[in-house]
């Protein structure tokens, strides 16, 4: 198991956040992202953080898991922050040679940093609390209006769920192949960039061979069970929204809208 890739890893728990209808959760996550972009002042940022913190606490996901999903982004966050510090015009605080650090720059950099952290933490909370299958079902439901424009929503959803279904399988496979090549003395960690890129060939070739073999097998298995896509397919676990789901949905919409309004006034 490759435990260092956590983005998109379902973390099963019994919590209100896990139980919330996946469609609502997906919708609310998108709405949350919009809200984060509208947040502007201290008050709105504070509220967004508070809401997210509350939901994380409710989800029973260990805080360390959320931090783990942020770890790969440290460089991006630092990079944007530094760019913003130097490139924002305003009242200079310190200046040397061609560099100028402005008060506005620090504020923008800080905001951008917080924004990225909130976005990633919020969206990884979705994937931590929703199984991939539920997530695709939710996407299919949210995309279904597009059927009017002849977008093959069912097929897209099937492709997506197959892709999601095979990510862990292929990851395991990659791990196995890596181990096997390591057992033959392959070295993926040291050497120049080019030699490290070359070192990937012994992994990629068997991985692609096996991915195509799996695709063939799966297609055969689906054909032999007479798979046809389309509207008439039913589900094993249809998504059913309960009353409390609606209460949460409406509540969150109101809170997020409130924050957006605050953000528009620059608070």
């Amino acid at each position, binding site marked *: 198991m490759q*435990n260092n890739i956590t983005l998109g890893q379902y973390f099963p728990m019994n919590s209100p956040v896990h139980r919330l209808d996946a469609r609502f959760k997906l919708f609310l996550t998108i709405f949350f992202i919009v809200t984060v972009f509208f947040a502007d002042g201290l008050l709105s940022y504070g509220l967004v953080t508070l809401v997210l913190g509350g939901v994380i606490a409710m989800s029973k996901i260990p805080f360390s898991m959320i931090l783990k999903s942020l770890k790969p982004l440290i460089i991006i966050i630092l990079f944007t922050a530094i760019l913003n510090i130097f490139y924002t015009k305003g009242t200079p605080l310190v200046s040397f040679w061609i560099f100028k650090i402005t008060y506005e720059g620090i504020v923008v950099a800080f905001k951008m940093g917080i924004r990225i952290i909130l976005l990633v933490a919020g969206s990884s909370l979705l994937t931590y609390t929703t199984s991939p299958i539920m997530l695709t079902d939710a996407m299919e439901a949210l995309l279904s209006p597009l059927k009017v424009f002849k977008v093959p929503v069912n097929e897209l959803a099937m492709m997506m769920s197959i892709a999601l279904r095979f990510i862990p399988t292929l990851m395991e496979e990659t791990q196995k192949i890596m*181990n*096997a090549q390591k*057992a*033959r*003395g392959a*070295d993926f960690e040291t050497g120049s960039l080019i030699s490290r890129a070359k070192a990937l060939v012994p992994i990629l*070739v*068997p991985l692609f061979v096996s991915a195509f073999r799996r695709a063939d097998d799966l297609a055969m298995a689906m054909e032999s069970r007479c798979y046809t896509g389309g509207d008439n397919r039913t589900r094993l676990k249809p998504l059913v929204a309960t009353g409390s789901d609606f209460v949460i949905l409406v509540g969150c919409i109101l809170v997020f809208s409130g924050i957006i309004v605050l953000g528009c006034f620059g608070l």
Partner: protein
Amino acid sequence: MILSNTNQPILEIRSLSHIYGEGTPFRHVALDNVNLKLYQGELVGLIGHTGSGKSTLIQHFNGLLRPTSGQVLLRGEDIFATKTATRNARFAVGLVMQYPEYQLFEDTVRKDIAFGPKNKGITGVELERVILEACDAVNLPRRLLDSSPFELSGGEKRRAAIAGIIAMEPDLLILDEPTAGLDPKGREEILETITAYRKNTGKTVLFVSHSMDTVANVCNRILVMNRSHIAMDASPAEVFSRTEELRNMGLALPDLTDIFVYMQNRGLPISDPVYTMDYAVRKLAELISSEKEHYAE
């Protein structure tokens, strides 16, 4: 029969534990305080139920997995002490993974077999020698060396993959279910390859197997794993005399032993466990001739 017991073991496992997914809901203790010594020239069979920790255990032998606690000593030296020690362990302990044919990647069999030895630093004439020797060791026709590994048959692919490990000239050869997914003929060939390899080189071989029959016929020492522990470590005769214990672990006896246990329970006057065909024939022949004498009197 444990050979050269007085010598230093080639590989020693000291109170080794391995825990997967520590700190997540998927936490799983795969190995719990395992101790093991492997000696020069042994042919060891490792059996156990699916999920008993066999594959996890052998991946510690060449340092692919780091133990959660405990040590792996190769000729007395901790393989995790330095990076060089770990790298040396990769070559000293040749590990053939399950379904090794899926690791073939080069455009010719020759190049693929050369991958391991090249990483070890073998070049030129020496490289050609180890490739040819490995090819012969697994009984792969030399004319196949220049064809693509993807054109070979299933059994040939498997043997080419094993040759890729043998070509590194390891002191210890570990094979994880080398016969899985092969037809009876392919299985037979692989087992012959393994026994012949050990006979010709005098090196230690350990292989994981599901099949009691395979292990019974080939090995001189058997390790039985059950629930993250080594439950038995003994000669085939001893292991197969512990019928009840094996059954409780969900392991089947070799077919031959099963039949003899059945007959023994019905009064057949043979007391020791029977697990190879030769021994069964000899015992039965003795029995028949003694019966004859009995009637002659």
